[in-house]
């Protein structure tokens, strides 16, 4: 028995500490194990024959002579079912996404056949020999045209091109009536390709000993992939094990069940050797899921004091050809309808949404999901109200934001804002960029280079749970999040979680949570994730949920474990269980302590020292967690961007950029800053660079990163990041989901800044991304109009 001062052993590595990331040691040494690092004996490579056209009937697929046993088409995949991702929302029309196309092609890049060879190059050689007999059809490319009566159809039995139409009306007519200011805007955002550094990939093998398909895949949600894969392959779930190794970025792109995964799983089982498919950049850009393509028609009703009275919205999401598993074709539009009002108060709101089907790849919820588009739409409206009333844009926002005195606040779409001071975040962001100084410089800029300042304020629902997703009725509804905690015989702690860490640093932050609960040294806390064979069920990593949900589950499991530790420690201390506490790595009573390591050693190695009946449940627990309310946490932020616009080249430069965000209690502020910086880079991509364009035939315009422009290190401005910390009343430590926020604000702030710079020249842009060509085109038109 050791006597210690408990407060001396408490290290600064619990909740709130900027602990260096545990996982970085292997990453920095090049020792991470990503999907393409996995090799298995006798493994063969897969290459897919993909459709060269967007819309066609398949008349025939001819395997090359001599390669009949190396090429597989739909008819070869016996017993395999297509992927269907339904939504229970009334009126939803289901699509059936074939694993390999059967009779019809619905987008460029759709897999038609798969080829197996020793090397990828040889597999591609075989793929090049496969002959396709396609009867090409005109393609449905534009979402607005797709909704016109009489449009050609992506799915003929539907009768139209609408996955789902939704409509909400919260007192719109009464609130809008008599409004002195009415503003209408038509805004569009571009289709983007989510571009994690590591693409997708699968290594599949059949394990006869376990009678199990073991499928390594670069995914954010191994358990969901297991359920979907089991359904498609007709295998019970216990015969499928999904392992996500190190995953090089996800952002939503890896929140999906892939046809390629189903194909690889089938082939591994039936060919008798492991197979591997590694997505290449061309497949990522031209064939696989996209995101973000919205069309908004907005009419705002305001008064002369700048108060937003009512908002009327018609929003279309281009959902592509298929409803993807598990998020479905409708999550994006459903989210638009529910969060378009943003952090603002209003008395009336009406919104109709359409999820349109087109001959393009399906869509996935990219970091921020619909919020990047919604924030852009709403913040353009705020600037328009400022224009109409003559009030400064910041003043309009301050007048309309939900106030801290109103928290918790149920907004017009019944979103329950948990806590925070939204106006203060805006004030701090304005202060950070020194708004008056920039306004002075803006006024002084008389040359060809103009300056503009743009703002964005938003809140971010994260970690929303059962009640929210049950309403959408998609294949995946999160319930209790689980974590398993096990003490090892030498006093270490093993945590197993069903979420997946692919850059978020969860191996570190979850260890911090456990350290906060039990006080074991952080280097003795090991996180296992991304493996259905080892971890409890979880819907995975998405929706900024892990720190709230997996963090809550780990804390709960640690508390349950402490309850198992306590009686053993109490016995060793010879006091009653009620008289001990478990914290800081020790079981304590008064000034006497026994270490948790000693408790573990006793239970595992010297059970003879314990009387019968103590801790028969052992030192391993699995606990489930839900937040006190499952309607989600609401982190929020204000972004302020300063841009210069060269009015002769259309070139836009970011001169300054400030963020004030509130993620409640930050478990690891350093990691949160990293999340913000990365998110902002992606938001800059949405604002200024990224667009996958399609021609009239549905052909994507870019197939390499030389054509699809991503922002890089040289495009990043210096960021000023300020934190507020208003705890959520509903989570274990007051933490809020914060992982997506960085990507939400930049399109709005930057677009508003560019328009602020160009408005005196008679130009206002209403589409993203804002390219130099778009800027110059508008400027030249304005010059012609004035001339």
């Amino acid at each position: 028995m050791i006597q210690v001062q408990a407060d001396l052993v408490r290290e600064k590595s619990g909740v709130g500490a900027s602990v260096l990331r545990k996982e970085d040691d292997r990453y920095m040494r090049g020792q991470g194990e990503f999907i393409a690092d996995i090799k298995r004996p006798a493994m063969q490579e897969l290459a897919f024959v993909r459709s060269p056209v967007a819309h066609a009937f398949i008349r025939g697929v001819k395997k090359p002579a001599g390669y009949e046993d190396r090429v597989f088409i739909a008819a070869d995949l016996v017993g395999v079912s297509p992927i269907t991702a339904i939504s229970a929302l009334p009126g939803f029309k289901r699509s059936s996404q074939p694993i390999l196309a059967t009779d019809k092609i619905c987008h460029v890049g759709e897999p038609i056949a798969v080829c197996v060879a020793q090397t990828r190059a040889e597999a591609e050689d075989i793929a090049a020999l496969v002959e396709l007999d396609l009867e090409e059809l005109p393609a449905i490319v534009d979402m607005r045209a797709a909704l016109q009566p009489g449009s050609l159809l992506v799915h003929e039995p539907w009768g139209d091109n609408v996955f789902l139409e939704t409509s909400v009306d919260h007192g719109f007519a009464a609130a809008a009536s008599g409004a002195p200011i009415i503003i209408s805007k038509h805004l569009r955002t571009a289709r983007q390709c989510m571009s994690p550094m590591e693409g997708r990939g699968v290594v599949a093998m059949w394990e006869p000993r376990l009678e199990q398909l073991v499928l390594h895949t670069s995914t954010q949600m191994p358990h969901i992939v297991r359920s979907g894969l089991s359904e498609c392959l007709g295998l019970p779930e216990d015969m499928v094990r999904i392992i996500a190794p190190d995953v090089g970025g996800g952002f939503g792109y890896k929140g999906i069940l892939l046809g390629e995964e189903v194909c690889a799983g089938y082939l591994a089982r039936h060919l008798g050797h492991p197979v591997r498919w590694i997505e290449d950049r061309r497949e990522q850009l031209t064939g696989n899921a996209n995101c973000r393509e919205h069309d908004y028609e907005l009419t705002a009703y305001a008064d002369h004091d700048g108060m937003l009275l009512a908002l009327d919205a018609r929003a279309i999401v281009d959902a592509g050809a298929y409803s993807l598993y598990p998020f479905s074709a409708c999550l994006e539009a459903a989210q638009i309808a529910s969060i378009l009002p943003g952090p603002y108060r209003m008395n009336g709101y009406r919104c109709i949404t359409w999820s349109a089907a087109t001959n393009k790849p399906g869509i996935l919820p990219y970091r921020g999901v619909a919020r990047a588009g919604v924030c852009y739409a709403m913040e353009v409206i705020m600037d328009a109200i400022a224009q109409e009333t003559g009030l400064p844009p910041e003043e309009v926002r301050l007048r309309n934001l939900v106030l801290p005195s109103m928290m918790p606040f149920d907004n017009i779409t019944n979103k329950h804002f948990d806590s925070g001071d939204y106006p203060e975040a805006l004030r701090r962001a304005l202060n950070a960029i020194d708004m008056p100084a920039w306004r002075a410089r803006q006024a002084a800029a008389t040359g060809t280079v103009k300056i503009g300042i743009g703002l964005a304020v938003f809140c971010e629902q994260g970690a929303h749970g059962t009640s929210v997703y049950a309403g959408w009725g998609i294949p995946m509804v999160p319930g209790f999040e689980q974590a398993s905690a096990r003490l090892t015989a030498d006093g270490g702690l093993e945590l197993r979680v069903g979420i997946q860490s692919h850059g978020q640093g969860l191996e570190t932050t979850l260890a911090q949570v456990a350290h906060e609960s039990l006080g074991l040294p952080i280097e003795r806390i090991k996180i296992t994730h991304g493996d259905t064979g080892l971890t409890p069920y979880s819907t995975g990593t998405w929706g900024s949920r892990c720190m709230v949900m997996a963090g809550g589950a780990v804390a709960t499991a640690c508390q349950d474990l402490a309850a198992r530790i306590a009686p053993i420690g109490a016995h060793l201390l010879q006091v009653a269980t009620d008289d001990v506490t478990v914290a800081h790595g020790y079981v304590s009573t008064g000034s006497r302590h026994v270490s948790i390591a000693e408790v573990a050693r006793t239970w595992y190695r010297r059970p003879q020292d314990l009387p019968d009946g103590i801790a028969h449940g052992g030192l391993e627990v699995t606990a489930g967690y839900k937040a006190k309310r499952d309607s989600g946490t609401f982190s929020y932020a204000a972004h302020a961007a300063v841009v210069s616009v060269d009015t002769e080249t259309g070139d836009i430069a970011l001169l300054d950029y400030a963020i004030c965000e509130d993620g409640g209690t930050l478990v690891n502020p350093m990691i949160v800053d990293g999340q913000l910086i990365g998110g902002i880079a992606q938001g800059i991509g949405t604002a200024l660079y990224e667009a996958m364009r399609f021609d009239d035939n549905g052909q994507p315009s870019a197939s390499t990163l030389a054509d699809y422009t991503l922002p890089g290190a040289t495009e990043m401005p210096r960021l000023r990041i300020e934190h507020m910390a208003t705890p959520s009343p509903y989570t274990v430590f007051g933490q809020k989901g914060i992982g997506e926020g960085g990507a939400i604000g930049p399109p709005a702030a930057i677009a508003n800044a560019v328009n602020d710079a160009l408005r005196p020249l008679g130009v206002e842009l209403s589409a993203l991304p804002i390219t130099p060509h778009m800027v110059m085109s508008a400027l030249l038109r304005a010059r012609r109009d004035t001339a």
Partner: protein
Amino acid sequence: MKPAPFTWSAAPTLDAACGTMRAGGRAIAGGQSLGPMLNLRIAQPDRLVSIARISALCGVSETADDVTIGACVTHAQIEDGQAPDIGQDILPRVAANIAYRAVRNRGTIGGSLCHADPAADWVTVLLALGAQALTHAPSGSRIIALDGFFTGAFRTNLTPGEVLHAIRIPRLTPDARFGYYKICRKPGEFAHAMAAVFISKNIARVVIGALGTIPLVLMGAEATPDGVEPAFRSRTTMLDEVTQHMQLTAVKRAFARAAA
């Protein structure tokens, strides 16, 4: 994205390279354009012959009037001053703004010219500087003024088995002025507009690149700040208004740099 099958060999000498190429081999130097084209299967040669290690292509020399840079000298070597400059630090500055350093470490000046991408920096710049291509073939060597070297986008008048040996660039005379400007959103991106201006006592030359076809070379009265616009517009009526404006802005800024 793996290439179709091909054989690869490294040519020990210039004549060996010429022989392989006349037999249908395709030359590869730094591979910074050909590499991606192979992987995308846009190019599917049966036979690649590497010329990158042929010492005759890797040297530099200079006289009082000009500098000669071997075709396989890399952009990075020029950026780092390992090749003689023609004056005013022009060649290192142009080299330093080509793509990314990783590309510059392997990409070669000769490879860039032979690839003849209309948006390549060297194509426009060296046309403006009045450079010459020195070619080698077993049948004899040629010296070709660069404006006769390019025959179209991605096309040159090299004959089968003929190798670009070196590039000869006149030194800047004391009265000469040079300016170059390209418009692109980020480093490494292909330029949306580019122009190079060369003015000396006897020569005025404006070269406008990134037009999707071989750069437009304007001389004499058309190569003056006032003369460029009408000449450019009359020759590029197929371009949209925005592209024309951006190109003319690049020209204007190239003139400003030449005057600076």
